[in-house]
Structures are given as C-alpha cells and as structure tokens.
C-alpha cells in the first residue's frame, strides 16, 4: 500500500494532503532547529485520522463512486492475498483464451478450501491495459463458470469479488456472445449446489457485475457502488449529456446504504476509516470476519433448500402495483 508522499488524493481528500504537508514542514523545522516537535506531530497525525473520518461521513453518491475508483484502492488479487492463504490461480476458459480481467482459483479461508473469483484491475498504465480495466470478455465469464463448476464438483464454497466498470463492449466480445456468457453465468449460479457469497469490493456495474454476482449472500463494501449502469453512461442516455453524472449517481441510489435499504444486498462490510485505500490489512480483516462468520451458517443448509432460497431471494426483488 503506498505511503505518503506516494499516496494519491482525490479532490475532496485534499485537506488530508494539506495536513501531511504541514507535518512535513514541522519535521523539517524540527530537524533544523533541533526542537522536539513529536507531540505536535502526533497531534497532527491524529488530525489526519479525524479528517479521514470527517470526509467519509458526508460523501455524496458521486464522491462514493470516485472513492470506489480511487487509484490506491485494493483490487481483487490484493484482497485474495490478504484475506486468504495458499491461493492457487487457475487460468483459461478451455475454449478461447485466458481473460486477464477475470482471475480465480482455489485458496484457503481460515483453513478451509474455497474457490475465489473476481474481476481484476491494474494498478499502473501497463497493468491496467493488461487487465482491460477490469472489463471481462465472454471468455472471462466462461472461465469464472468453469471454476465455479469445479468448486461445485468438489463441494467447495465459492466467493466472488466484484469490481468492474462493466463487461467489455468490444467487437470480439459480441462475436463470442457477451450476452450469452453473462446470461449463462447468472442462470448457472442460481443453481449452484455449493454456498456462494458475492462481495462488491469496488465498482458493481450492471450485467458485468451480476455475471459473477448471484449468490446466497450478496454484500457490498462501505465505499462500493452497485447498480444497472454507470452514472456516466446513465447521464449520457437519460440526460443526453456527459455533464449530469453527479445527478445520475444520486438518482440511481447506488450506494451500499441504499442497496441494503432496498433489500437488494444483504450486508455492508465496513472499510478502514477514510476508505479501504488507507489500510489494506484492515480492509481484508473486515472482509475475512464477514466471510468466516456467514459461511458456517450457509453450509448448514441442505443444498436444495439453499438453491430454492436463492431463487426466492431474487424472486422477491422488484416493485409494482396491482390494480
């Protein structure tokens, strides 16, 4: 995890940067004048924590979206590294290729074998391209399904980590059936005989997210978002302009609190003060705590009952009136 001065700051995080800069100045002064300023510096460091808390206590939905895309935010492989042990990455859909925007494999969660699958973003320009910005092609969804079937065969629970701005809208993606690939995953996931837990760790955009997002429990990290379309695309289509992304983010009600309130997700997993990018270890601790808490409960249910409950859970979603 990057440390100051290598940290990146979003516009609304600038007050935190200012505090770091003030600390820097104090440290320089202390060095020059040989005066012990550790007490003041300690207070300033406390002020940084307070500022992180303050900023995240009143974020707009759009700022929440920005936070979910924070350049320092941990991605799927980071969570896998910190939450699980002995990750064995498995590659390929056995058909077209290995999609680098989707990763997965066996890992140990608190001593138990599970299958972990998720979209992967890159942390620098080169890696971002390699990972296709976390936008999977059909072969990515088919690889995910292959791994889920493997897990099912050996009775291992499945955990998916969702972080995508959407499924890739490319020419080859259409040729190879992007729609079919996502549809197939949704259909098969609802029938999986093993427990499935889905966690939105960053961006949960549309079918691209739902393509690995059908589970017995679906939860969201505090600063993630999940809805039918990205605020930018929604603005373009409904407002006929790029300018209304903030409004679109508000209208879409895409935050974890909204989604929990609607009953569309089951739980909100807390993040470290100020967001997951401030402390990868703590972020993983919170995730792990949730997973090892809920897994035994899911495992205690008979597979057919679990499937029926899954179908029922999604079957209840929606709002309408009857005349």
């Amino acid at each position, binding site marked *: 995890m990057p440390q100051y001065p290598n940290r990146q700051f979003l516009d609304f995080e600038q007050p935190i940067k200012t505090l770091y800069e003030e600390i820097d100045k104090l440290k320089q002064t202390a060095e020059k004048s040989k005066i012990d300023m550790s007490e003041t510096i300690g207070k300033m460091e406390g002020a940084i924590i307070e500022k992180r808390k303050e900023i995240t206590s009143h974020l707009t939905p759009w700022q929440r979206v920005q936070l979910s895309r924070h350049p320092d935010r941990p991605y799927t492989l980071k969570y896998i590294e910190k939450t699980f042990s002995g990750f064995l990455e498995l590659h390929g859909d056995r058909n077209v290729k290995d999609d680098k925007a989707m990763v997965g494999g066996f890992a140990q969660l608190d001593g138990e074998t599970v299958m972990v699958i998720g979209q992967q973003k890159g942390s620098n320009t080169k890696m971002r391209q390699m990972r296709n910005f976390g936008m999977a092609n059909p072969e990515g969804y088919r690889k995910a399904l292959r791994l889920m079937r493997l897990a099912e065969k050996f009775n291992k629970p499945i955990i998916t980590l969702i972080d995508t701005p959407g*499924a*890739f*809208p*490319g*020419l080859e*993606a*259409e*040729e*190879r*059936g*992007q*729609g*079919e690939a*996502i*549809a*197939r995953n*949704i*259909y098969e996931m*609802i*029938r999986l005989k093993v427990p499935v837990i889905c966690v939105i760790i960053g961006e949960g955009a*549309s*079918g691209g997210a*739902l*393509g690995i*997002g*059908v589970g017995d429990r679906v939860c969201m990290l505090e600063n993630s978002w*999940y*809805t*039918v*379309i990205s605020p930018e*695309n*929604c603005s*373009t*289509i*409904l*407002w*006929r302009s790029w300018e209304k992304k903030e409004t*679109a983010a508000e*209208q*879409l*009600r*895409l935050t974890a609190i909204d*989604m929990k309130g*609607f009953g*569309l997700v089951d739980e909100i997993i807390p993040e470290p003060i100020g967001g997951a990018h401030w402390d990868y270890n703590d972020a993983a601790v919170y995730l792990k705590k949730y997973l090892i808490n809920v897994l035994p409960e899911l495992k205690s249910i008979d597979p057919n009952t679990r499937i029926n409950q*899954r*179908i*029922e859970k*999604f*079957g209840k*979603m*929606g*709002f*309408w*009136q*009857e*005349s």
Partner: protein
Amino acid sequence: MKKEFEEDLEANLTGEEEVQHEDAARRSWFKRKKKGILTSTADKKETPEGLWNKCPNCNLISTTSDLKENLFVCPKCSYHHRIGSDEYYEIVFDNNEYTELFGNILSKDFLNFTDLKNYQKRLDDIHAKTDLKDSMRVAVGKVNGEGIVIACMDFEFIGGSLGSVMGEKFSRAVDHCIEHRLPFLVISKSGGARMMESAFSLMQLAKTSGKLSQLSDAQLPYISLLTDPTFGGISASFGMLGDLNIAEPGALIGFAGPRVIKETIKKDLPEGFQRSEFLLEHGFLDFIIDRKLLKDKLSQLIILFKN
C-alpha cells in the same frame, strides 16, 4: 445483405416520444391510441388506409393495410417492420383468440426517479396516450391447436425496457406454464434494462433466470424469439437462455449497443454486425425464422417437444 441504417437505439430507453428517429414517422403509423373499453381488438390500431409507408430498407412505398396483409413484412425486400404484441398475437394465435394474463400489474416509481422527466409522470403520460400497461404482455392461447403461453414485448413502452413489471409478469407466466404444463415463448424487442428502476431492474436478470430454472426442472420447453432490436439486459439473461434461441431476419441483437462499441474500438462496425445472420454464423441462434412461417414453425416445435 440489407442496407444498414443508423438508429439511436438508446433514445428509445428514455421513453421520449419526440425522439429524433430516421423512421420515426413509420413507427407512428402503428402507434397505439387509447380507445374506449368497447373497441374491438381489430380497431385498436390507427391504420389510416390511405396513408403510404416507405420501407426503410428498400424504399418501397406501400399502404399500411397492404403491409398488415403481409404481416408487416416488406413484399419486395422482406424487411421485417417492427410490430407490437397485438400484431404478434394476431399472427400467431388461432383466430386471434387468447387470454391476456397479469394485465393488472403496473409499474410504479418507487425510487422517485427523475431525469429530464419524473418516472411516474412518464408512466402516467404513456398510460394516458396508449392502452399499453407496460413493456411486456403475457397471453395464453392456441397455435394450430397447441396450447402455449406467449410473453411479448412492446418497444413503444419505454423502448421495451426490462423493469420490475416485466420481471414479475415473466415469473408468473412461468408459474402458469408449470401449473398448466404449457410451453413458453418469449418474443423480445428491447433496448435493455429500465434505468429509472436502477438496481431493481438489474436484479430482474437473476429473478427471471431463477424462474427459467424451475421451468427447466419441469421439463417444459422455453423458446426465445429475438426480434429487432434486442439488447443489454435481455440478451444478458432470458433472451439468450432459450432451449431454442431463434430470431427474425435482419434483427439487431447484442449485449452492448452499436454506439458504445464504436466509441470503444474507435472504428466503424462491419456490415451486418450484430444482425441475426451474424449471430447465427457465430453460433448463438438455432435458426432464423421468417415472420410468415413463424406460426407453423411454432406448432411444429411444440409437437416435436411433446411427442
């Protein structure tokens, strides 16, 4: 190969009537107007006999009544004009006899969603102008004597968008099929998810898949007929999950819309891209069916599955 004509598919999802559209005029010929309860089905459409209609593909001029006679297929180039549930039901059901199911389920603006217009206002306006209740109707009837449940989308209703009502009607249609041991046909024609219902619309993908899984366990056939256009959430769920996936000729079908793809790859799209023939070639359709052969093919399929 058919001449490609550009269309702003996404504009339909906004539910705006005034959307600029190359063949907007053509579509308005078939626009449903609200009628009194006593009006017969046949009179529901405003089909001014004297009006001329230009085929957007080959420019052939024909009267609306001539077109209707030909099941809204261009007599010269076979272009399949967009039609709604009324027309499909009339084409497929014996003697145009069918019972509409779950017509009492209506959308509501649970989120108080407001873009350029408030969603509830949008719904009220459409309800005032047309007798369509939502973007999907469900009906049960007979096709050459064989019983079937047909769910059919109406593109006129906010671009045939998938929202909670479509999800719920779809679910109850599946229940009806299971209860009465009937096959299920879905005729899709949609721009994708209904954005005004936000994540609720997305969850309909999972909801309908769950129901399809129950239909599958009951060993009842599910046929997905894709018509022009079918995009987004429909193709990423039940649209592509048929025991048989079939399509009308020349229909534009895909996950991402042409505009988005073009912007992503920064190139023009090849001719015929995302058309039915393209999907057949790439292995995603069982066959393409001409509208005039649809009815007989359907009953043939039902018998095939039954015997």
